[in-house]
C-alpha cells in the first residue's frame, strides 16, 4: 500500500513509497517477458484513461499496464469525451464517479486539473501529465530505468548521481516531477537550456541551471534530453531548430565528450536530428526504449499499489 490515495505528483510519495513502487515494478518487469503477460490482480476493477490532450505513448502505456493486471480499461479522449461539447471538468468527474470507476488516469492541458478530479470523485486519480506542471509516472519510470541500468537495489545508489536535464525546460512537465524527485533521492541535477526556454526560477526544484551545455556535459552520469515541443514554440524562443541542434543537440561529437559510462535518456517522442541525431538515438548508451518498457512496469506498479495491492506481489 502507498501512503497516498492519489498520485498527483511525486511529492505525494514518501521515499518508502518510491522504493515500494520501484521494487514492485521490478517484479512486474519479469511478467512482461513472459508469453502470457497477464496477472489476475485487478480483475473487476475499472480504470479509465481520460486523455484530454493528445498522447499516444503515455495512454497506451497505462492501458497496457491496466490490462496486464486484468483491470477493465476504458479509454476516453478529448475528441470522444463530452469536454469538447462544453462539459466542465467538474461535471466530467462527477459523471465518471457515477459510473463507479476505481481509478482515473488523467492527461490535460491545464496545470492542476487532476486536483479537480480528486476533489469531485471517489476514484484514485493518477496524474498522466498536467499542462507544464507535473508528470509523476514519467519521473518514476525514469528513476526506475536509471536504477535498473546502474544495477542497484534500494535508493542509496542515487546519492551523488550527476544528472543533466537538457532542452525545453520551460515548457516541460517532466522536469517538474523528475528533478525534485532526483534531488530528494540525493542526486545532483543541473538543467541546461537557452534563457528563452528556461523558467523564471528553476531553483524551486532544487536544481542549478546553466545555458551552455558543453562545459557541463562531461560531468554528467545521465544526460536527459527533453523534446523540443514544436507545438509550444509560439513567440519564437529559438531562431531555428538548426541553431538549437548546433548548440544543444547530441550527436557523435558530443557523445564523445560524455563520460564513457554515462547514459542518454529521453522521454520521447524524439525529434531525430534536433535534440538527438540518429547516431545518438540508436546508440546502445541510449535508454529510450528501456524507458518505454519501464513505463509499463512502473504504471503496473502504481495501479497495483493504489488499487489496494500489498507488498507481496503474487506473480505466479
Amino acid at each position, binding site marked *: 500500500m502507498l501512503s497516498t490515495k492519489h498520485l498527483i*505528483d511525486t511529492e505525494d510519495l514518501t521515499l518508502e513509497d518510491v522504493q515500494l513502487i520501484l521494487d514492485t515494478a521490478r517484479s512486474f518487469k519479469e511478467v512482461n517477458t513472459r508469453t502470457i503477460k497477464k496477472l489476475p490482480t485487478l480483475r473487476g476493477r475499472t480504470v479509465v484513461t481520460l486523455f484530454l490532450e493528445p498522447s499516444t505513448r503515455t495512454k497506451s502505456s497505462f492501458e497496457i499496464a491496466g490490462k496486464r493486471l486484468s483491470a477493465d480499461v476504458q479509454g476516453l479522449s478529448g475528441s470522444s469525451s463530452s469536454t469538447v461539447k462544453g462539459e*466542465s*471538468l*467538474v461535471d466530467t468527474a462527477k459523471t465518471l464517479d457515477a459510473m463507479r470507476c476505481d481509478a482515473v488516469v488523467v492527461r*490535460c*492541458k*491545464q*496545470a*492542476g*486539473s487532476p*486536483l*479537480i478530479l480528486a476533489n469531485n470523485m471517489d476514484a484514485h486519480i493518477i496524474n498522466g501529465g*498536467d*499542462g*507544464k*506542471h*507535473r508528470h509523476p509516472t514519467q519521473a518514476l519510470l525514469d528513476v526506475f530505468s536509471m536504477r535498473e541500468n546502474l544495477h542497484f537495489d534500494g535508493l542509496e545508489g542515487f546519492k551523488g548521481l550527476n544528472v543533466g536535464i537538457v532542452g525545453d525546460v520551460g515548457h516541460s*512537465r517532466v522536469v*517538474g516531477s523528475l528533478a525534485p524527485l532526483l534531488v530528494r533521492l540525493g542526486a545532483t541535477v543541473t538543467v541546461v537550456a537557452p534563457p528563452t526556454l528556461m*523558467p*523564471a*526560477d*528553476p*531553483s*524551486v*526544484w532544487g536544481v542549478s541551471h546553466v545555458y551552455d551545455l558543453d562545459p557541463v556535459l562531461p560531468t554528467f552520469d545521465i544526460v536527459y534530453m527533453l523534446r523540443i515541443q514544436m507545438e509550444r514554440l509560439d*513567440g519564437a524562443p529559438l531562431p531555428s531548430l538548426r541553431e538549437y541542434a548546433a548548440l544543444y543537440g547530441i550527436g557523435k561529437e558530443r557523445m564523445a565528450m560524455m563520460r564513457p559510462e554515462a547514459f542518454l535518456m529521453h522521454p520521447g517522442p524524439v525529434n531525430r536530428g534536433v535534440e538527438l541525431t540518429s547516431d545518438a538515438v540508436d546508440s546502445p548508451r541510449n535508454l529510450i526504449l528501456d524507458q518505454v518498457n519501464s513505463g509499463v512496469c512502473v504504471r503496473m506498479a502504481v495501479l497495483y499499489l493504489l488499487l489496494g495491492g500489498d507488498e507481496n506481489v503474487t506473480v505466479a
Partner: protein
Amino acid sequence: MSLLLKNVRAIDPAAGETGLDAIVDIHVRHGEVIEIGPDLDVDAGEVHDLTGKVVVPGLVDMHVHLREPGYEYKETIESGTRAAVHGGFTGVAPMANTNPAIEDGTKVRGLIEKADESAFCHVYPVGACTKRLMGTELAEMGDMVAAGAVAFSDDGKGIQDAGMMRRVMDYAKMFGKVVMAHEQDDGLVGCGIVNEGPVSTKLGLVAWPAEGEEVMIARDIALCRLTGCALHVQHITTARGVELVRAAKKEGLPVTCEVTPHHLFLCEDDVTSSYDTNFKMNPPLRTKTDCIALADALADGTIDAIATDHAPHAKHEKAREFELAPFGTTGLETALPLVLTGLVSTGKLSWERLVEVMSILPRQILGIDPVSLQPGSMADLTVIDPDRHVSVTADWFESAADNSAFLGQELIGCATAVFIEGYAALLDGEVVDQ
C-alpha cells in the same frame, strides 16, 4: 425627512480648516447635513444612537465591475450595489467592459437609467477610451460626458499602441476628465496569469512579469507629461511601479494611482498547489516585498486611493481549471474590514488617511462633488463599528457572487450603517430593502 445621529465619533480631515475628529451629533435634513455639534437639541423623525461608532464621509469605490449589461448571471447593478452598501460604500464607479461596452452616450444613459431603477447607492459611470475597448479608435467621449460619464478607462485591457494612448489622453483632456489606465503590455504579458518567479515555475503556469505593468506605467507617465491629461494608474501592484508614480508626482505631473485590498494583503505565495481560482487576478498577486511597499506608499501619500476592482464571477466559471477560470476576486464587502484589520488597527494607516483614500480622494480624482462632515454637504455617510467581528463566509455576501480570495478570514471592524442623501441604505449591518 430628518435624521439625527447621536454620540458618534466624526472623522473628516477635509472638514473646516483643520479637519474634524470629535464625538458629536449630526443633524441631516432633505439629504443635507444641517448641523454638527455636541448634544444637538433637535427633533428628528429618525434618531440613531451611535455610541462607540465612527462616522465618515461616504466611501467611494472608484473601480468595480457590476457586469450589467451583458453578464447579469455574474452580478447586476442591483446585487453589486447591495454589496457596495453592505461594504460601507455610498457610491461606485463601474468599468466599461460590459457587453455591450459603455462606449457611447446611449450606453451611459442606459446605465444611469438602470441604476436609477435598481441601485442601492450612487453609480458613477466610467466610459470606454476606445470603441469596444479594442484600443484602435477613440470612443465618443464628448457624447458620454454629456450623458454623465465621470472618467474614461479601457480597464481589463491595456491600450497597446502608444500613439493611440496619446490620442486618448489628448482628447480626454478637452473634457477635463481623468484617463484611468490598466497598465499591461501584451507583448511582455502574453497569456500570463501568475507573477513571474518561483510560483509560476512551481505551478507550471504562464508568468506575468512585473515589468509588463511597469513599462506601461512609465510610458503613460511620459504621455501625461506630453499631453497634460490627468492620468490615474489603476490597480498598481509593484514597488517599482510605485516609485515611478512617486517620481511623477514629485515632478508635478497630474498622476494618481489606486491599490486594491488583495494586492495589499495577499501575495504570490497565496497561490498554491491547491490551484484555488479565487487567487487568480489580473494583475496577479505579487511578492511580499511589493505588499509592504504598497502599504508604505498608501500611508505616505504616493497611492491616492483604495479601490476594490470588485470582479464577480459565476460559480461554474471559477470552478474551472486555473488556466481557464476568469480573473478576479470580489472586493466590495471585504475592503473596509480588511483595511481596518490590517492597516488601521495596526497603526499603519490613520483614520484620517483611511477617509482620504477611501472617500475624499476617489471623489476628487473622478471629479465628483465632494462630501464632507459639515453643514451644507450632501449627507452621504458611512458609519463604522471598529470592533464588530466579521467572519467572511459565502453566506455573508450580498453580492450575487462569492468568488472572494478572503473567504474564511476573521476580520474586525466593518460598516454598520450607510446613509445616502440622508436615507438609510444599511442599518445594523443589514441592507435596507427599497
